[in-house]
Each structure stands twice: as C-alpha cells, then as structure tokens.
C-alpha cells in the first residue's frame, strides 16, 4: 500500500483533513456528474476569459477565479411561477408586461431592491406570450429543472458562457455560496484536466461548444440578462487536488477528446461527457482508496451484469463486487488513520513526557484537526482520544463521502437495482452508448472492445476477462459468455453492432469521421 506523493494543502477549513488528504477538496455526494460539469464549465469560462485556460500559472492548487451570479436570469427562469397567472388575468401584452414587472419588482430575490428592474425584457420581447414560450424552452432543458431542489440550485442547459453561474443560497436580498451543490468537485475536475497535458486540445474543441458566445441559445440567455448591470462576482479559491501527476488525468482527457472529435450535432455530446466524467471520478475515488485500503491490493474491477430476467451467477458476482467497492473508501479512511496512529510522530509522543497532550498535538499536526469543530472531547487518555477522532471521522464519512460511489454510479447509469433486490453494476443503454462513443473509433471487433473496457475501466463482462480478473472457470465462464452475448444483443438493439458471421461481430460508432453509412 503505497500512496503516490501528495502536494501540501493550504488553508482548507475542515474539522480534520482526511478525505481531503486522500482525494482532494473536494468530492461530495450531492454534486452529481452533471453539476460537476456545470461547475467545471463555469470555471473554464472564467479562466479562458482571463487567458489562463487549463493552466496553473502560479503553481499547483492556486486556482482563483471569479464566479458569476446572474441573479436576473435565474429569477426569470426558476423563481417565476407567475407567468401563467399573468397571462390569464390580463388581456393585452402591455398589461401582462406591466403586471409581471410589478410582481418581479416585489418578489425577485437575491437582487438589491434598487436593481430589480426587468423592463429591458419588454423592449427586447414585446410580445409577452413569446416571452413565456422562451422561458418554457429554457426550463424544458434545464439541469435539475424538475427536481425539488431550491430554485437557486437549478441551472439552464450550458449553451454558452452566459448561461454559467455558481450555485447559491438566496434569502431576501442576500445570496451566498454554501457549497451545497457546487461543492468544488468541478474545481477538482478542472485541475485534473489542467494536469492531463491535453489542456490545449480540449480548449480548442470546446471553443465551438460551451465556450462559444455566439451560439444562438447563449445569445438568448444573454438577452435575458440586464444590459447594464452585473451582480458582483464572487472571488473563489481553495481547490486542492493532492496529486500532481496521475495516469488517470490523461485517461480522462483522452476520453473527452475522443468524444469531442466525433463532432456530434449541437450539444449532443454533453450527456456522454457527463457519463464519462462520472465514471472517471468514480474510478479516481476507488483507485485512491486502494492505496490505503487493505483489500485494495487487487485494484479496481467492476463485474457488469447485462440485465437478465432471471438471476445468474454474474448477478451474484456483481452484487458482491458492488459491496466490496462500496466499502473501499471506508476502509481507506481506517487504513489512513491507522498509519497516522502508527507513525513515528504519534508513537514517540505516546512514549514521551505528557503523553496525552503530546499525542493530541501529534494528531492535530498529522490530520490538521480543528478540535473546536469536532465537538466535545470527553476523554483524557490518548488512545481513547484517538478512538473519538476515528468515530468522528467515520460518522462524517458516512454522511456524505461514503455515498459517492452509489450516487455517481446511479447517475451515470452504471449502478441499478432493476430486476433485482440489491443494487449491482447493470449498465443502462445510455451508459453503454457513452462507452461505445468514447472508445470505438470507426469499428472494433467485439472481443477487442470487451478487453479494452477491462483494461481501461476494470469492467468484466465476458469470460476472457472473468478468467483473468476473477479466476473464473467452468460453469462460471459459461455464464460470463452468455453475459457477453446479452451485451451483443443489447448493442444490436441500440444499433451499435454488426455481426458478420458465426464468430465475428463489430461494434460500430456511426459518428466516427470516416464512418458514414454503417448502421
């Protein structure tokens, strides 16, 4: 168990630095892959504007950017239940506008009274019904639009830089970032891509996509914002990604570049970017956990069950693998704490003068403990103190970090409970599509595809991979063979595969540049 070298962290406000030390500051279960992407795009847009896209000019972990708030836009889209009411109560467009502007002056939030003037909208869209249609179109494609989250945590689709803003908590005229849904995972993603070595490639490809100010829907979003007022931007800093170089970063960037190179129409590539990002973040969590967890020696694998009406041994293996992976981060925490306890600093403190205070100081140094935030410490015995720290850490871990595996997995379509009583790795159609688009250039023989999924992501689908990863044999291998056949049938239903003959099938990516007609 040897962890790669880590950079020093600075000024992270936390009761103790444990998950932060292993994974960075920070990953959080309520920030889904899509929200991570949104935070990332917001940062990228700000950094690109400042001419520093994908670089860390002041050194690692010095990211500083100014996040936009765009409260006018958000009020219009997500804090605006009066449109239908106004349309029904008033006849002419003039009247409707007048009434609605009145309401917004009173009811809009997060904006100082002085600036609650939405009349610029009427000049731009004289017809109120058109305005309603436009709002509905934005809401229809919103991220988390349908959820029951607070309105200030809903986001329009990222059509361009003018649609991007930070997550806020709004009360009355005040708005603040409570790091609830933009918990800095987007910052970590940004730093990972900075350190991947492919920043320039990514930037070039995103120019025409999310960074394009001239895109029609971005211009529309800009027109919904006041021409001569902008909310003060929030300066933000403090992101911390412990590892300067990891092969994971380049793998993530490679998948991004491959997806972007497919030149899918419009913004179609974004859901695939979200899935692939979620997958890589999940792998990052588990792989770093393996550095510290006892059972992490074998590396990270996922047994994928292609959903079958009746339970098979593959499902069982998948459930077991799920539970193993589920506890890996928790084991890592325990392992890390154990290493701290057994470190020379703590051990010599125990044996020296004033063991309790010495140990307390040693622990404080090793874990950056803020005793005040940890609540009452009752004991006066070093070992018991340590146990209190452990209990606190485990409790805190369970509250959020431990859920990341399940939440991310579910969001990207990797984890499902469909047809079974317990969750396991059962890929959805959307997830399978993302895998094909990110990995197949043109055409790839099916067995080669399965092997590639194993080598890159640790996915075990067919019997060759089962043999290697799980030492499967005999009847188990047959079950995996059938699993692979079911995958083929699913890919056929999705139009992603062509079988040439008895033992030869090709996975096809119809978006690949040199592949027009094959379906």
């Amino acid at each position, binding site marked *: 168990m040897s962890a790669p070298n880590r950079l020093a962290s600075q000024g992270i406000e936390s009761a103790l630095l444990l998950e932060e030390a292993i994974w960075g500051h920070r990953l959080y279960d309520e920030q889904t892959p899509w929200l991570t992407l949104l935070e990332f795009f917001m940062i990228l847009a700000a950094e690109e504007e400042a001419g520093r896209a994908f670089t860390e000019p002041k050194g690692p972990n010095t990211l500083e950017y100014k996040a936009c708030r765009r409260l006018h836009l958000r009020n219009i889209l997500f804090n605006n239940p009066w449109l239908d009411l106004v349309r029904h109560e008033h006849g002419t467009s003039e009247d409707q506008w007048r009434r609605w502007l009145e309401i917004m002056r009173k009811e809009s939030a997060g904006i100082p009274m002085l600036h609650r003037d939405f009349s610029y909208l009427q*000049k*731009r*869209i004289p017809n109120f019904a*058109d305005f309603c*249609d*436009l709002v509905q*179109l*934005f809401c*229809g*494609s919103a991220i988390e639009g349908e959820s029951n989250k607070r309105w200030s945590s809903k986001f329009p*689709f990222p*059509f361009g830089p003018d649609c991007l803003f930070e997550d806020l908590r709004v009360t009355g005229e005040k708005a603040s970032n409570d790091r609830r849904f933009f918990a800095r995972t987007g910052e970590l993603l940004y730093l990972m891509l900075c350190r991947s070595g492919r920043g320039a490639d990514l930037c070039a490809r995103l120019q025409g996509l999310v960074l394009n100010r*001239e895109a*029609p*829907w971005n*211009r*529309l979003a800009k*027109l919904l914002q006041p021409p001569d007022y902008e909310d003060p931007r929030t300066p933000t800093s403090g992101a911390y990604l412990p590892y300067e170089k990891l092969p994971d970063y380049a793998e993530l960037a490679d998948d991004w570049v491959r997806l972007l190179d497919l*030149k*899918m*129409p*419009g*913004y*179609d590539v*974004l*859901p695939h970017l979200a899935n692939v990002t979620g997958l890589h973040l999940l792998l990052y969590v588990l792989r770093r956990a393996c550095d510290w967890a006892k059972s992490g020696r074998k590396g990270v694998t996922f047994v994928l069950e292609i959903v079958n009406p009746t339970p098979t041994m593959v499902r069982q293996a998948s459930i077991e693998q799920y539970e193993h992976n589920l506890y890996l981060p928790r084991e890592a925490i325990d392992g890390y704490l154990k290493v701290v306890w057994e470190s020379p600093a703590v051990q010599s403190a125990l044996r020296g003068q004033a063991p309790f205070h010495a140990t307390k100081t040693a622990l404080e140094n090793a874990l950056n403990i803020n005793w005040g935030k940890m609540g009452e410490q009752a004991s006066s015995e070093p070992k018991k103190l340590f146990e209190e720290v452990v209990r606190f850490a485990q409790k805190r871990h369970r509250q959020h970090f431990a859920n990341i595996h399940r939440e991310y997995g579910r969001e990207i379509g990797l984890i499902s409970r469909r047809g079974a009583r317990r969750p396991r790795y059962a890929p959805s159609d959307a997830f399978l599509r993302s895998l094909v688009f990110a990995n197949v250039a043109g*055409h790839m*023989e099916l067995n080669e595809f399965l092997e590639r999924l194993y080598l890159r992501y640790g996915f075990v689908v067919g019997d060759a991979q089962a043999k290697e990863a799980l030492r499967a044999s005999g009847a188990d291998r047959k079950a995996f063979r059938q699993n692979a056949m079911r995958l083929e049938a699913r890919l*056929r*239903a*999705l*139009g992603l595969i*062509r079988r*040439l*003959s*008895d*033992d*030869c099938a*090709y996975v096809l990516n*119809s978006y690949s540049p040199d592949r*027009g*007609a*094959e*379906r």
Partner: protein
Amino acid sequence: MDYKINEWVSFLRRYGPIPQNDNMYDESIRRLTKKLKIQPLSFEVPLRSQLIENFTSASPVSVILTGTAGDGKTHLCSQVWEAVGGEPAEWLSDSKVRRTKLKGGRRLIVVKDLSEVSIGRERKFLADLCESASAKDPKDVFLIAANDGQLIAALKELGSGKKERKVADAIERMLVDGTDSRKDLSLRLHNLSRTDVPELFSKMLDALLSHPGWKGCAGCPGTGDDSSVRCPIWHNYQTLVREQLLRRRLSDLLTLCELNDLHLAIRQILIVLTNAILGHPDVDDRLMSCESVDQVVSSGAAAKASPYRNVFGMNLTRRRREDLAAFDALSRFGIGNETNNAVDNILIYGSDDPQLAPYFDELVRPDAAYGFHRDFATAQKAYLESDVGGGAPPLLAELPSQRQRLFFTLPDSRATLLGLWELSLFRYGGEYLSEVYRPLLDRKPVKRAIVYRLVRGLNRIFTGFLVKDDRTLYVASSNSHSQSRISRLLTDTISVDPKKGEQINLEYDPAMKRVFLKVYLSPDIVVPPLPLHPVRYEFLSRVAEGALPSSFSRECYEDFLAFKSHVHKAIEVRRKKEGSVPSSDGTVTLTLFDVGADGFPRPRPLEVQA
C-alpha cells in the same frame, strides 16, 4: 400396404433437419453418395462462372471466399479446381494446401478451409497472400475459403510488416463494409452470405425436383390414382413441382429474411426444402421415409404431412425449431398465428355461411389432402354445431396450419381483397418486395406515394407530433438535444420532391445489395444513407398509419432518432457551407412550430431583439 423403397428418398433425408447432420454434413453426404451410387445435389452458383473466368484468364487475381458455414465455399473451391485442370487425386487427398499450375505459368494455391491449416502455416499464407495482393502482376494467386471470424483473427496475428498490415487492414475494411474489391489490390473478396436469394433458391429447387432419383418412385402404388393409399412424400413432391405460387411465396419469404440481414446459408435452405417434402410429426426423426409412409397413411395422419406447415418446421419440436437458423428465421413472420377477420371467417364459417361459401369452395374445399381434409372437416362441423367437450375446440388447433396453407395458396387475384400479407407480421412485406425492392433492382423508381408515406412516418418520429404532411420533412429538435422525443424547435425543412437541390428518395446500392433511404440537402450534401430493410419499412409504414413509435418497436425508434441526429449534422454542414450569417443587429430568431388539428405544422418565428 407395400410401398416401394426408393434409396433416393433415404439419401434426401440426409439433407434434412436430422440431429446427426449438424457436424458431419459433408462427410456423411460423401459417404452415402459413394455407397448408394447416387449423384449428390448440385446446382450452379452464379459466382462459379465468375471465378472460373478469373482463374483461367490472362491476369488472374487472388480470391478470398467468406461466409458462414453451409454457404458452399468448399464446393465452389472444388469446382474451380476441376475447371482449371487440377489433379483430382490431389483434391481428394488429405493435404490442406493444394497447388496447381494455371495457364500462363502462374501457380494457384487453394486452401478450401482456413481453419484446417495450423497456425504457423496460416501465417505464411496470409503473408504470401498480402504480397501477392499488393503486386501488380502476381506470380502466385490464391483461392482461400474462410469464415469471417477466422479470417479476421488470422489477419490480426499477422506480423507487423507495413505491407502486410496495409493489406490486412484493407481486407478487414472490405469485410466490414461489404465491398468486394479495391482499386489498389489484386484481390477479390466474395462474401457468399450476400447472395441473390431468388435466383439461388430457384436453381436449388429445380435441382432438387428434377433429380433423376425421383424416377425411382415409378411403379410404387403410392404414386397411383388411388387417393386412399397415396404416398404423402410423392404428393408433396408433386405439389412443389406443380405449384408455382408456393415456390414464389417461399422465395419471397426467404428474400425478406435475407434483406433483413437474416442470412440463410445454402445448407439451411436445403433443410427447409427437404423438410417441406418429408416432414411429419409422428415418425422417426420427424422425417418420413419410404418405410414409414405405410404407418402414416394407415393411421389417417397424412394431413399432418402438409408441406405448407413443414416449411415452418411445425413437424419439429419448438426447441429444435429455435436451434435451426432457417426455421427460426421463418418463424419470425408469425405465419399461422397472424390473421385477419376475412380469412378466419372463411376458415371457420366457410362451409356453412352462404356468403363465405364461394371463397371456401375456391380456396379450401378442393384440397382434400391438406385443405378440407377429414380432421379439419370433423373439427369444423363440431365447432359449428357447438359440439364441444371441455377445453379448447379442436378447430382452433387446426387453424394455424390452414392459415399457413392459405399463405402459400391464396391466388394473387385474391391477395389484396383478403389481405394476404396480414397473415404475417410483415403486413407491408409484399408491398416492400413488389413496390420497392424489385422495381429498384430493375432500375425503376419507387412510386412517390410510398415515399410520401415513409416521410409521414419520419415526420411523426422526428417531431413527436401526429403530423400529416408528407411532402416536406420536418427536422425538429429540442434546444439541447437533437434526439429528443418531443421537439418543438424547427431546425429546418427538407423538400421530398426535388427542389433547390433537396430531395428524398429510395435508392438501391448494388454493392451492399440493399435499399437505402437517401436524404439530399444539396447535390453534394447527402445524409449518410439509412439502410431501409423490411423491418424498418414496416415500422415507418405502421407509424405513418397511426402506431405509436416507441411501443411498436423500441429498437427501430432509436434507429430513427439516431438518423435524425445525422440529418442535423448534415444541416449544420450545409449552413456552414452557405455561410449563414447571424443578423447584424444582434437579433436572435427561433422557429417554433405548432401542429394544428389538420396535421400540418405551422412554423412560428420568435424574435428577441438586442
């Protein structure tokens, strides 16, 4: 009753769905031909003359034959060998690699089955083959037969010499794309899985029916006029000989299978034909023989030998049917289970009801063997007289065979009136063949009415609304996703009839041997053509007439949504080419659309001024 034993019939059984056959096909046929001194079935495959011409010409090129098991690769190789004057003894020997001299001093190396050759030697071959294929005037030419899978695997293991890699990649590309030659290679790749089914089927059936072995039945009492002792095997044989309609409809079904990419190898088709003549559920191996005919006739079960149900393998167990590719493919038509009111009314009430009687008398009654046979007559009478004990009336069990029979015997003149193709799941199957596939093969255009109907189906899928307009293709999307199910934003429209470079057509690609839907945005901007096989044709037609897309076939629905994505991409290319300029004053215009009760989308611009 003593029926004459004809050894030809026992030989013929070997081509049928006998379990022992599955692995040792060629072997057992060869042994029997020697033993019984019977000529095996042989018919000319169109490729044969092409190959012989190549190898006897002044500048032959190497040939690779691929395809699935049972496509006839080995057979073709032996025919070529014979035609170029190869030593017969050499062919019959055990050697896996056979060499002979061609006219003009070149050497021909024939490998009739790549899997027979061990790994080490395989490499040498393919390397030599690559060498020969890259040369303008090769000294050695090759004829190699291999399954696609074997070939690709072997190619991958080839060394990493640049020349070899280049040829190997080219061959792999040809396999995946389905092309048979490339300008830069002295090589042809023939995929025997892509055959011309009607022609091949016709030749096979003729070879089977005109085989001299049938003469051996002469003098048997079962071939006489006495219908009470008539041999069902002979009767089925005569039926196949006489009834052109049966042939034609069966050929249609096989063609539709092929066009749906459900390839049936020659061996599989022979199984169907043999089973058609010899099938019966009550005998050994479920195939009749001269020995078992007596039992069949005297037990009064001759009606179950109906060739119309044998074609679908109804004499076999369900398990066996699912295992055999041919019957599995034919069962997908659902013939026997699908029906319509007209047909079922005739079958059930026809002998009773005065209005239906003329149809019944024309279509069912005359066939005493398989139409209005004794068991059916009894069951029908019992049903009509409400003489049913507990449980399902026996008549219901008779209906599938009757429907299957009608599918093959309903005359063309009655086909539209009684809805022939409604007896199958592919209601538009017949139309696909007669109004789309065959005209295109003959280089005639498809009727515009059909193209319009397909466009109406496309419109409903592309917009998610019940659109009736069929002269314009509405390409719609949501603002964030081009493959959305309900799309309120109109990206663009495309004219179906030729207008300003736009048009939508059905075209046939002779290389891929398939029908494609082609959407032209301009003379040089075409959306990647969508293969329009019978399943998709059926889907679009049903959606056009009112079916809900995702409930009829999710797979097809996803296909068409993905196609919409490609149409969007092509529109983006066209816009870029046209250099569409955003308005200079910063106004943004969107096009929404509403679909009125008349089913015609009305575009509605939404403008936002800067």
